[in-house]
């Protein structure tokens, strides 16, 4: 966070203390949200968040800010719908404007199989509390007049789609800062430029964190790390089913008209929305090979732009302003991994792949409840790390929208 924003948000920095009840490694959305909920819901305030760079500088500030609950399996719909609800209340609760805007998400399909898939998605969503309807091409044209239903006469005509009414966006930096500010007001210490370099272990238990500013002992260590979680977990002897892939996105110059909904297509592999500045924001699939590189590439720009233009021809008149890359911790079943790790004193919230931002409120709320009560909340029980060894994966690849 720069000096300008620090002056605007009431953040209070402290010296690193030698011991905390809870040490959270990773000052992104999930780390800050966990600290915020520990302090505000459970009165646990001897909490430190360690961030090796600046808060929200990783994927929490690099994502494409979509908030939605239109997932394909009951466990995920329930979980993300809770987050959609919490996001709607977060501005009022924190007193900070986050530019939260409910826009609706249109998920387009172009094949007969896709029609069945989206009808099933709408049914599962309705059954578990998310507002999603199957829509016909005529209804789609009414929602997005700019769309070319024939997709340029190519192999991907729009045959229908699902419309997720509560789909929304919010300004990601403001979410991070508001959570940080709220946590700090209640006494949480946030330490920027403090890198966790190791974990202290005693009798099989994780009892603290080594940092480049000295050791910190902790009752519980929570990894809310994005990108380098495999290395941190290995220090505790925990193996993770994570591969870290780059994900690229770009924005155009501003489109002078209002483009209201978020539009996504799994077959054409892109999604588009309009930012508050009026820019068109586009994203697509993760890079195929895992890496930690933040480098952006021309191949992605040209292929994503080409696919997006087949459905939204007006994009052809816009220019690309900037592109960027984040690194995503992909889990094999495209669902998050939260909770106990099998090592006492060490918890993880990871596997946030390309779906982390939308889960920031609920992820923090549930992790805080787990830490405070010691029992796994129902909402995140299906997402435990041991589901892989138990052969109970939460397969939901079709809902990721980025693969």
């Amino acid at each position, binding site marked *: 966070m720069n000096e300008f924003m620090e002056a605007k948000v009431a953040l209070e920095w402290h010296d690193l203390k030698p011991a905390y009840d809870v040490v959270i490694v990773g000052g992104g959305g999930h780390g800050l949200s966990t600290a915020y909920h520990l302090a505000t819901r459970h009165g646990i305030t001897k909490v430190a968040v360690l961030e090796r760079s600046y808060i929200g500088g990783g994927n929490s500030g690099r994502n494409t800010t979509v908030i939605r609950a239109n997932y394909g399996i009951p466990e995920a719909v329930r979980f993300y719908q809770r987050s959609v609800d919490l996001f709607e209340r977060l501005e009022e609760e924190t007193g900070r404007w986050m530019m939260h805007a409910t826009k609706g998400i249109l998920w387009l399909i172009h094949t007969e199989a896709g029609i069945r898939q989206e009808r099933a998605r709408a049914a599962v969503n309705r059954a578990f509390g998310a507002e999603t309807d199957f829509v016909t091409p005529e209804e789609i044209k009414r929602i997005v007049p700019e769309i070319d239903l024939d997709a340029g006469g190519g192999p991907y005509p729009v045959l229908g789609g699902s419309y997720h009414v509560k789909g929304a966006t919010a300004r990601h930096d403001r979410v991070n800062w508001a959570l940080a500010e709220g946590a700090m007001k209640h006494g949480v210490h946030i330490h920027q430029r403090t890198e966790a370099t190791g974990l202290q272990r005693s009798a099989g238990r994780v009892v603290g964190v080594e940092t480049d500013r000295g050791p910190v002992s902790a009752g519980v260590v929570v990894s809310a790390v994005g990108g*380098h979680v*495999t*290395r941190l977990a290995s220090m505790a002897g925990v*193996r*993770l*089913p*994570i*591969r*870290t892939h*780059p994900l690229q996105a770009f924005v155009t110059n501003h489109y002078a008209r209002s483009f209201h909904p978020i539009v996504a297509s799994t077959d054409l592999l892109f999604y588009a929305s309009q930012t508050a500045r009026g820019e068109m924001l586009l994203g697509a699939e993760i*890079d*195929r*090979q*895992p*890496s*930690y*590189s933040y*480098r952006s*590439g*021309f*191949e992605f720009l040209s292929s994503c732009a080409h696919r997006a233009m087949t459905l939204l021809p007006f994009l052809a008149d816009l220019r690309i302003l900037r592109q960027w890359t984040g690194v995503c911790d992909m889990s*094999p079943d495209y669902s998050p991994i939260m909770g106990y790790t099998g090592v006492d004193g060490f918890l993880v919230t990871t596997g946030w792949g390309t779906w982390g931002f939308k889960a920031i409120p609920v992820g923090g709320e549930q992790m805080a409840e787990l830490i405070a009560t010691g029992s796994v909340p129902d909402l995140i029980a299906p997402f435990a790390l041991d589901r*892989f*060894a138990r052969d109970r994966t939460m397969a939901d690849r079709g809902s990721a929208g980025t693969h």
Partner: protein
Amino acid sequence: MSIRFTCPHCGIRPLEEWVYGEAYSVPDSILDPDERDVDRAYMHNNTEGPVREAWFHLYGCRRWVYMTRDTRIDRML
């Protein structure tokens, strides 16, 4: 910028021609056979740094090639 692959059969070829073939290895420290199976099926080293991995040259010589890539910078070594 794209990764430059030096194929022993085709010379320098772009990323689009290749299929990522992964690199698995179960740590020797895991001894239990069931645990080794779980690790082989799901877990990853997710190496930060040089890693030796397989790539299939689908739109080229259609052969598997082993190469070393630095995952921190996404470049072939």
